[in-house]
């Protein structure tokens, strides 16, 4: 029996500053994916590689699981430097990809060749599960090819610093641009955890990027060329630029948000409830602390918001390390004691990193929670059987956090979320300076709850809710959403998402941490770069090696 007691209070967990300090952990989706690929003995092959010396052509990589085979179809282009842009409004990319359901035929490849390079302007089909594209890291891509073609290895420090040969600028799944709906594949065991399609796509892209530079180096250097050293290759992941497009996801999928946070919080509670710590568990924890320290030490960002957060993390981890020097692991519930200490001794960055580290030695105890990361999201029925008064009492109970936010000032409603006519991407506007606020997206939950509460207050408390909704259909979506809250206490970001001081990168960070990214590098308050699968084994290395020991860089004796 696991103890699920002592889950942290949603008021503590789901405010933006803490969500924006989230770290990857054992239940992060990339780690769930690689554990499965190894456990199920997936087989990988380079099915086709028809690419010329300049890096133009197409390739197909196969991933074969126990029941089904999937194919990464890659189209490599020769993009002039002036056309290369990471913005979602770009119209050309160095490489475009899709994940195909099965082994593609020649006809499939011709169909995909006519559509995948166009990305949003093309159409894929229910045989495709994901659509994506990537741009080269211009400097590192050339540097690596130059070195390998001359028979030399590229500079290890530079590889580590940049971290990737290509960065994806969008990875679409779930029915986008004609791809298969989530419902169509949700029953497949390999896709029960979230975003496994998209991350399998990225994982195969990573292998392709290294094959591509080695191929181009070979074409240039001939017999002089060498392959990339396997140890250096490990230091390369796939870069990713993530902007506002990802930010509304958590608000638009409250049941999923709850599932992710609830699984993570349950894992933490299980570890805290352990009556004792094993010697092996402590040793593993300390090793991972050292590696997390190295990760923090090598985490650089030029962004003024991120720099003090990294400094805080470094200081917190040092404090934790010193605390462990005299920590008595023989006391009852030692993990809980450590956590209690951290709650007052460490900042948010340190606490959330500690959470991830405490899960590391306890895979047997917590990894089953990966099965709870997904949830069906049927269209929720609205229950209007109560009265205005009963809904008021409901809001007082479940939305006290929203009702406590002061929405009277202009700064509290300074922003509005909207969908841009250009590329149909979510953006953030200044309500009182820009046109378009009348087309606002309903992401300001606390403001909507406030407006609902005010409308309720103007009515007779005995008025049937059905009559209220007939008179006020503008509040219908808010009521429907709010009624999910009792069963999903972690579903709301308990902050004002319209406030002038709100940082969208906090929303991006928590989502990307659940993906399994670390070393977040914000480039503004609304987009950031990360590296995915850095230090992870490559597909051909999975069976012989460890699949789940790559989230932090290795250090000597660790």
């Amino acid at each position: 029996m696991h103890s699920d007691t002592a889950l942290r209070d949603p008021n503590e967990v789901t405010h933006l500053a803490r969500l924006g300090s989230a770290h990857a952990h054992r239940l992060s989706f990339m780690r769930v994916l690689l554990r499965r690929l190894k456990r199920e003995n997936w087989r990988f092959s380079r099915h086709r590689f028809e690419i010329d010396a300049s890096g133009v052509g197409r390739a197909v990589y196969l991933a074969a699981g126990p029941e089904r085979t999937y194919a990464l179809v890659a189209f490599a282009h020769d993009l002039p430097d002036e056309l290369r842009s990471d913005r979602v409004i770009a119209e050309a990319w160095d490489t475009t990809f899709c994940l195909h359901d099965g082994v593609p035929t020649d006809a499939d490849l011709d169909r995909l060749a006519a559509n995948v390079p166009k990305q949003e302007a093309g159409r894929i089909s229910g045989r495709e599960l994901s659509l994506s594209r990537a741009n080269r890291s211009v400097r590192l891509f050339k540097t690596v090819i130059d070195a390998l073609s001359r028979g030399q290895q590229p500079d290890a420090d530079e590889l580590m610093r940049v971290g990737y040969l290509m960065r994806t600028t969008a990875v679409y799944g779930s029915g986008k641009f004609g791809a298969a709906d989530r419902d169509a594949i949700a029953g497949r065991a390999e896709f029960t955890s979230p975003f496994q399609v998209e991350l399998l796509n990225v994982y195969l892209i990573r292998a392709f990027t290294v094959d591509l530079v080695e191929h181009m180096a070979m074409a240039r250097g001939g017999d002089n060329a060498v392959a990339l050293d396997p140890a250096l290759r490990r230091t390369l992941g796939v870069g990713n630029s993530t902007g506002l497009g990802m930010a509304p996801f958590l608000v638009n999928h409250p049941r999923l948000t709850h599932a992710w946070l609830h699984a993570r919080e349950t894992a933490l509670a299980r570890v805290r409830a352990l009556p004792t710590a094993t010697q092996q568990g402590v040793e593993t924890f300390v090793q991972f602390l050292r590696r997390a320290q190295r990760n923090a030490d090598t985490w650089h960002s030029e962004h003024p918001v991120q720099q003090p957060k990294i400094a805080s993390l470094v200081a917190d981890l040092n404090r934790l390390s010193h605390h462990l020097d005299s920590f008595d692991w023989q006391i009852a519930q030692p993990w809980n004691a450590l956590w209690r200490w951290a709650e007052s001794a460490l900042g948010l960055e340190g606490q959330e990193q500690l959470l991830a580290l405490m899960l590391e030695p306890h895979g047997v105890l917590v990894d089953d929670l990966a099965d709870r990361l997904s949830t069906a999201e049927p269209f929720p029925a609205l229950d209007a059987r109560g009265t205005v008064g009963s809904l008021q009492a409901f809001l007082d109970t479940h939305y006290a956090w929203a009702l406590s936010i002061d929405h009277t000032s202009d700064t509290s409603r300074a922003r509005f979320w909207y969908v841009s006519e250009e590329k149909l991407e979510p953006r953030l506007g200044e309500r009182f300076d820009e046109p378009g606020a009348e087309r606002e997206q309903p992401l300001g939950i606390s403001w909507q709850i406030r407006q609902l509460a005010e409308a309720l207050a103007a009515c007779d408390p005995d008025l049937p809710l059905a009559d209220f909704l007939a008179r006020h259909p503008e509040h219908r979506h808010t009521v429907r959403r709010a009624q999910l809250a009792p069963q999903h206490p972690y579903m709301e970001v308990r902050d004002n998402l319209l406030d002038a001081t709100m940082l969208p990168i906090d929303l991006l960070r928590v989502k990307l941490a659940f993906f399994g990214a670390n070393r977040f590098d914000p480039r503004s308050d609304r987009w950031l770069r990360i590296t995915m699968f850095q230090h992870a084994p490559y597909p051909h290395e999975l069976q012989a090696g460890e699949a789940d020991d790559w989230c932090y860089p290795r250090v000597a004796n660790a």
Partner: protein
Amino acid sequence: MIVSLGEVEAMVRKAARGAGWPWGHAEELGASARALCAAGFPGAALAAALLDAHGDDGTCPIRQSAHWCDTRQLPDASVTVRCPLLSVPLLATVFCSDNRVLQARWDGAMITADATGHTCADDPHRAATTGARGIKFTAVHHTPASQAVARAVGVEVQDANWHALDRHAQHSYVPASEQSRMGAGPTD
């Protein structure tokens, strides 16, 4: 064109919003169109027809159905709603509990829906009418058959219907400006 069910739901929701609908009803129209498409009916075309018919004269299938769901009471008498098939998925979510199915009849058509989303019509062409009078909705006891629900993977939508929805959806977007591009994110 072939579109996914997710695209149908999102497009219809945005189109309804662009046509001035409140978010709650826009969500309901999107969900209804999706459910109909999944069951093989022309949900997107019906949504486009509904949104193209201006004004609310008390015959909106979504607004009417929402109120019947809210009051947990189907109308005793026959009623008039436009595109009545769009009512069926919404009503089925509320009135199909306890081994009941929803039956809807109009113009000689009979549609049956259950809580799993399984929807069938004895005359699919008549079922997909955009205008009908004398519509009768009833919830009747029925022992559900243990049949699997076949759901479409991709659905065919006439270009004209998709473009009609898109014209409405355009009114839910904010035109680009240099200021808005600054808020877009990555700039190299």
